């Protein structure tokens, strides 16, 4: 960076001196030229002086290929997978969901089934009053009680939310009981 600045300074100085010499020759009182043409108009400073910006933008070449691209590299860029064929390859991981029959991708959740679950959870969470849900979380387990359920399942040591509707078929009441395995 320092060298660049010095370079510009040297250029400026050279240019200034040349201009001065020429102007002194042309416009000196001792030497008078007879010419009909008007004296040269002072050009704008932008064209005369080389600023650092001009040098950096115009005179110096920055990003330039160092060597010729080989045929192999050219072909791999144009004809191979990256940036071309990712969307053109067929998806082989599409399977039908075992519950609803809609198509889904293996490794993901079925969108159709999850829509139902998401809507139901929104309803359930909206039944809890907003202040308790957002600012004052209950210190007991929350239990959602549907109309079909056994009234004996309601327990006192739980925060009970009354859902005034029938239990959806996919949300079985048997899930509420603890299993015997390690995934309980």
């Amino acid at each position: 960076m320092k060298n660049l600045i010095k370079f510009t300074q040297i250029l400026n100085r050279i240019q200034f001196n040349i201009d001065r010499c020429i102007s002194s020759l042309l416009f000196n009182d001792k030497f008078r030229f007879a010419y009909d043409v008007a004296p040269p108009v002072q050009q704008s400073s932008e064209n005369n002086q080389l600023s650092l910006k001009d040098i950096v933008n115009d005179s110096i070449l920055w990003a330039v290929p160092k060597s010729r691209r080989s045929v192999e590299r050219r072909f791999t860029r144009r004809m191979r997978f990256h940036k071309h064929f990712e969307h053109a390859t067929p998806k082989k991981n599409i399977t039908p969901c075992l519950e609803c029959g809609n198509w889904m991708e293996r490794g993901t959740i079925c969108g159709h089934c999850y829509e139902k679950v998401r809507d139901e959870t929104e309803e359930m969470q909206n039944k809890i009053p907003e202040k308790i849900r957002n600012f004052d979380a209950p210190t007991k387990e929350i239990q959602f009680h549907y109309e079909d359920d056994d009234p004996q399942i309601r327990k006192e040591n739980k925060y009970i939310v009354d859902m005034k509707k029938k239990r959806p078929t996919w949300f079985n009441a048997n899930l509420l009981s603890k299993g015997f395995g390690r995934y309980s």
Partner: protein
Amino acid sequence: MNKISFNALKHAYRLRHRNLKRVQERLPTGYRIGPRGRIDYLRNSVTNLFREERVEGTWDYLDETRGYAELILQQSIKNGYDHEVTKEMVDYWIVEKDIIPKLFEVLVPRFEDYDTAYTKLYTLPYVYPGGPKRMGLLELKGNF
């Protein structure tokens, strides 16, 4: 059967944390950027998980929260409330303080006998045409 207590997490995790570079752009209230901003974001994410017990979002960000959430649960199950280090950790990581009693009175008894991880991270379906971002679903087990 004797319980063997592990200190390691019980799910697959990366060896290095992810740099969450877009954290500041996400909210107009403005998280800080950098490592401190990342932790600010993750703190809020973890408290949200403990409150709602199911969170949708970007899969990579949820993967980061999963590690911290599981660690907090594991430490609080192992040590309980009277342990100084867990108290500090829980106090820092849970931003909204009404969830701290929920942690120790609801979640710890629920997860005491678990051999497996306490959370599960699913991938949500890809919406055409898709892109580099995939959406995920992080859930505490036994949240019905």
